[in-house]
C-alpha cells in the first residue's frame, strides 16, 4: 500500500503538470481557429452592418457622422420615403421580384420534380439520353442564354413583357438532376407498386406518395431557384424597358446609376432599398440553413 501511494505521489506531479500543459496547449490551439474565424466574421458582416447604419440615417448625417454607428434613427422614415417615391415604384419592383422568384421557383420546382421522378422511376428507351441533355443544361451559364432569349422573344414582339423574364425562369435543369438522384435513392419501388395495386393512378401516385417523400430535395430546388431568379440581373437588363416591369435588383441598379450621375437624393433610396431587398433573402436562407443542418445531421454527428 505504501509503495502504491508512493508511486501515486511520484506520478501525480508529472500527471498534473502534463494536464496543465495540455490544457494550456489546448487553449492556444482553440484560440487561434477562433481568432481567424472572428476576423473573417467581421469582414463578412461589416458591409451589411454599414448598410443597416447608413439606411437608418437622415441624408445630412450620412457624410458627417460615424459611418459605423447610429446617429438620429430615421430608418422607418426612410423606408416610408422609399415606399412613396414615384408613386410606390419600389414596392412595385419588390412585388415583381416576389412574382418572378416566388411563382417562378414554384413552377420550376414542380416541373423539375415531375421530370426527375419519371427519369428515376420509369424505364423507357432514350431515358439516359434525355437525362444527359438535361445535365448539359446544368453547365450552360445563364448569361449565355440571355442574348439569344432576347432575340427569340423579339421575333414574337414580347421582349418588354412579364413573360420574357418569367417563362425562362421556370426551367431548372439542376432541379431535375437533384430530383432524379433523390427519387432514385429515396422513393422505394415497393411503395409505388403498393399504391398501384390499391388502384391509385400514376399522377395521383406521384403527387400523393412520391412527392411528399421527395420534399427535402424539392425544398432545396425551390430555395436555390428562388435565389437564382431573385439575383438574376442580365436577363431583365437585356429584356425590359418599362420601369413598371423591373425586378428590384434592376430598379436599384438604375437608381444607383442615376444617383451618381445626377440626383444625389436617390442615394438614400438606394441604400434603404438595398437593405430592404436583402432582408427577404436572408430570411429564406435562415430556413435553408436549418434545412441543410438536418441534412448534414444524417451524415453523422461528430
Amino acid at each position, binding site marked *: 500500500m505504501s509503495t502504491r501511494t508512493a508511486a501515486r505521489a511520484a506520478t501525480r506531479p508529472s500527471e498534473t503538470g502534463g494536464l496543465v500543459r495540455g490544457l494550456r496547449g489546448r487553449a492556444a490551439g482553440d484560440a487561434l*481557429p*477562433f481568432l481567424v*474565424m472572428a476576423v473573417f*466574421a467581421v469582414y*463578412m458582416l461589416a*458591409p*451589411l452592418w*454599414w448598410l443597416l447604419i*447608413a439606411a437608418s440615417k437622415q441624408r445630412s448625417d*450620412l457624410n458627417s457622422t*460615424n*459611418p459605423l454607428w447610429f446617429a438620429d434613427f430615421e430608418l422607418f422614415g426612410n423606408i416610408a420615403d422609399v415606399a412613396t417615391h414615384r408613386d410606390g415604384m419600389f414596392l412595385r419592383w419588390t412585388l415583381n421580384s416576389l412574382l418572378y422568384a416566388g411563382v417562378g421557383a414554384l413552377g420550376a420546382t*414542380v416541373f*423539375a420534380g*415531375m*421530370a426527375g421522378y*419519371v427519369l428515376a*422511376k420509369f*424505364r*423507357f428507351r432514350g431515358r439516359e439520353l*434525355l437525362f444527359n441533355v438535361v445535365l448539359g*443544361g446544368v453547365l450552360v*451559364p*445563364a*448569361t*449565355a*442564354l440571355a*442574348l*439569344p432569349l432576347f432575340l*427569340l422573344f423579339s421575333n414574337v414582339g414580347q421582349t418588354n413583357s412579364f413573360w420574357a423574364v418569367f*417563362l425562362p425562369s421556370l*426551367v431548372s*435543369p439542376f432541379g*431535375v438532376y437533384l430530383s432524379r438522384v433523390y427519387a432514385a435513392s429515396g422513393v*422505394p*419501388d415497393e411503395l*409505388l*407498386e403498393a399504391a398501384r395495386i390499391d388502384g391509385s*393512378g*400514376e*399522377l395521383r401516385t*406521384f403527387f400523393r406518395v412520391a412527392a411528399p417523400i421527395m420534399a427535402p430535395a424539392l425544398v432545396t430546388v425551390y430555395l436555390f431557384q428562388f435565389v437564382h431568379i431573385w*439575383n438574376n*440581373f442580365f436577363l431583365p437588363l437585356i429584356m425590359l424597358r418599362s420601369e413598371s416591369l423591373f425586378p428590384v*435588383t434592376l430598379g*436599384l*441598379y438604375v437608381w*444607383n*446609376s442615376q444617383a*451618381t450621375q445626377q440626383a444625389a437624393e436617390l442615394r438614400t433610396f438606394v441604400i434603404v432599398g*438595398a437593405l430592404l431587398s*436583402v432582408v427577404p*433573402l436572408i430570411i429564406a*436562407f435562415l430556413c435553408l440553413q436549418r434545412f*441543410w443542418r438536418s*441534412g*448534414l445531421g444524417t*451524415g*453523422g454527428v*461528430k
Partner: protein
Amino acid sequence: MMAQATVAARRSPRGAAGRGRLGAAVLLLLPFFVLFAAFYLAPVAYAVYQSFLKVEREGTFGAPREVFGGFDQYARVFQDDAFLASFGRVLLFGIVQVPVMLGLALLFALLLDSGRLRFKRFFRLVFFVPYAVPGVIAAIIWGFLYSPSLSPFGWLTERIEFMSGSVILWSLANVTTWMFTGYNMLILYAALKAVPPELYEAARMDGAGAVRVAWSVKIPLVRPALVLTGVFSIIGTLQLFTEPQVFRSLTSAITSTYTPNLVVFGTSNIPNFHLAAAFSVVLALTTFALSFGFLKISQRGVQA
C-alpha cells in the same frame, strides 16, 4: 427493388395499364421538356444560327437584308483586340481570385470541422449570409465602401484608390470573394462531414496533429468537392458581368469591353446581333473547354 419494378413494367408493356403508365410518364415529363426546349435548347441553336448570318445592303442606301455569312462573324471575333483583352483580364482575375477564395473556404471548412471551434453554428451562418445578397446589391454596397467620401474605412481609401484603373480588378475580386467564400465553405464542409471519422481516427491515434490530419487525410478526401467548386468558380469568373456593370457608373476605369459579357452586352446594344451572337458562342465554348480541361487535369492528378 429496381428489378421488381422493371419486371412489373415489362409484364404489361402493351396492356391497358402499360399504356396508362406511358401516358402518365409523358404527362409528367412534358412541362419541363417543353420549357427546356423553348428556353434552353432553342436559344442555343438560335444563337449559333444567328452567328452565321450577316447584314448586306444593296449599294450604300439599299435596304439591309440578312444573308448567310459563313465564318465572317467569327473572323471578326478573333480580330477584336478588345474582346481578346477582356478574356485575358478575366483569366488573370480567375488565376488569382479562385485559388484565394477556395483556399479560404477550405481553411474555414477545416476549422469548422476540427471540433475545436467555439460558436461553430454562428460562424457557419455568418459566413454564408453574403451569398444571400444579390450581386447588384453587393456591388452597390462595396461601391459605397470604396468611395472616399462615404467609406467607414477612410484611412484605407485615402491610401488606396479602389476605383482606379490598376486596382479595380482586385476591388472586383474582393466583392466576388466576399459573396462566394461562405457558399464554397459550406459545400466543402458538407463533404468533410460525409467522411467517416474512422478514416482519420487511426492517423490521430498514431499521434498526427490536427494540421497533419487535415493536410494528409481530410484534404485528399474532399478533393472531388474541391474540383466541383473549382469548376463552378471558373464558369462564374468567365461570366463576370453584374459587378463590373454596376461599377461602370462609379468609375471610368471599367470600359464597355472590360469583361467578355460586357462585350456581348455592348455589341447587342449597338445593335449588332450577329456579331454579339458569335461573341456569345465563343464565350460559351471557351467556358466549356476550360471547365472540362480543369476536370481532366484534376482527374489525371488522382490517377497518378
